[in-house]
């Protein structure tokens, strides 16, 4: 019978372990993404300076923006397309304006295409690293990006698209009920 208890304990521990493991998958996924470029996100680079070296070839950088559902801000790149040289520091800005009469927090999510260019883009500074961009009613702002494209960028990549999607950080759940009260209640 003691044997039985041992099996039960082991199995219960396995269940608890797997439950914890499911939460551990969250940071593991981030690490995995970092290594493989799974989700196309560019993380803040710690060794970006080392990529600044001799001026390399010319490539084109294309910035695109999108407002996710329910995000009323004006949000767009100051300049859509730029020719840049690899190996040199490049600075760009995005323009954002809170057009509502409430204080709002936005969050930008970045994505790169083609996804394998990701490893060669070293961002020193980007508003997309911020957990939230707070804007007062009517406030406008220029959001900075500072980056280097490494000289090692594969030869066949001549054009890189950097996409930024702006989300409302405090988007509420339950679309249906809120909407209802909004129309009926006022």
């Amino acid at each position, binding site marked *: 019978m003691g044997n039985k208890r041992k099996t039960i304990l082991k199995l219960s521990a396995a269940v608890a372990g797997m439950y914890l493991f499911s939460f551990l998958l969250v940071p593991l996924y981030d690490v995995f993404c970092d290594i493989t470029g799974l989700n196309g996100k560019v993380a803040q680079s710690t060794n970006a300076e080392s990529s600044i070296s001799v001026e390399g070839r010319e490539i084109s950088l294309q910035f695109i923006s999108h407002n996710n559902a329910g995000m009323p801000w004006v949000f767009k790149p100051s300049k859509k397309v730029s020719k840049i040289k690899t190996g040199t520091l490049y600075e760009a800005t995005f323009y954002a304006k809170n057009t509502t009469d409430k204080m709002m927090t936005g969050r930008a*999510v970045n994505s790169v295409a083609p996804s394998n260019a990701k490893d060669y883009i070293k961002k020193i500074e980007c508003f997309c690293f911020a957990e939230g961009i707070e804007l007062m009613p009517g406030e406008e702002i220029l959001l900075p990006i500072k980056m280097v494209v490494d000289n090692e960028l594969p030869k*066949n*990549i001549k054009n890189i*698209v950097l996409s930024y999607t702006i989300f409302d950080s405090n988007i*509420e759940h339950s679309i249906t009920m809120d*909407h209802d009260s*909004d129309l009926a209640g006022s």
Partner: protein
Amino acid sequence: MTNVRSLIFSIKKQFTVILFALSNKASAEWDDLNMTQGATAISREVYDLHMLIFWICVVIGVLVFGVMFYSMYAYTKKKNPVAATFHENTKVELAWTIIPFLILIAMAVPASKTLQSIYNDEAGDINIQVIGHQWKWQYRYLEDDVNFFANLSTDLDEIYNKVPKGENYLQEVDEIVVIPVGKKVRFLITANDVIHSWWVPAFAIKQDAIPGFINTAWTIVDEPGLFRGKCTELCGKNHGFMPIVVKAVEQDEYDLWIKEKQAGAIALAELTEKDWTAAELVERGESLYIKNCVACHGPNGAGVTGIFPALAGSDIVLNNKTRQIEILMEGVQGAAMQSYAEQLAEVDMAAVITYTRRSWGNAEKGDGEIVVPKDIVEYKKAKI
């Protein structure tokens, strides 16, 4: 009695329909039942791969089921009263582990090659950002500043069986994506709200559209043609109603189309300056309402209780035009109601609002005020 008879009759009728369908299909071309060969080098490669694997499976199936059916036929209790006693054979077991493994390698090699050619990262000649919305697609031509939304253009009456269905039922849109032949067109696919998936079978492109992320796909179409596709990721109520139509044309035709599109945007802005009467706005607004609003708010503005609010008799639509403009411009946060600021020109925004305020008895119950394009322009000015 008559009930029973009519029931039997209708069953008979359905049965004939099914038989007819079967015989019809039997003579129909094999192509209707199979994957399309498509219109690009990649799609043909994918098709060949599909057929290769299919025939390998058929051959394996014939061999394996052949032995099985033979055993079922030849070794019944009647024909073979006493069963053999063997129950293992290492050599045979090893063989049917290793041989399938080799067949799999034979399949994996061409499959991996095709996959590699799909994952080609060279830039496109034309870049189109594709954005999935509930429940329509938005297209932005990045080089040419062309931007439009493509809505299902099938009539609701067709969907609800009130009128006969057209040839391209559920596969037609109000704005077609035009691309030139022979050029590498790259699609940068993302989404506005939930996950969608952009699928055009003729290009063998299916990529999920995920909020915040860019997925890329590319194609080079050899010949002009019209290609239809669909959203393939469950994205809510009208997932089945957001088709894709792409038209490949010669380069000069494409250039012309781009020019027309750009000119159209300017013409629309001019309409804003015009003085509009209520009747004109209502007329313009009706088709816009059907295109953009009916899906949720219904043809009679009745909405869906608990999910999509009614517009008929709504306090905002009756008496609060400022708030109504605001809702259309900003969307409702956390709700299915999206912002139409980008989707509708000022004149169209004004028309559709006026239409809702003048329809379904709203004009009689509320203030009946109309909204003109200038109101929208004013609103926008106040914001920026």
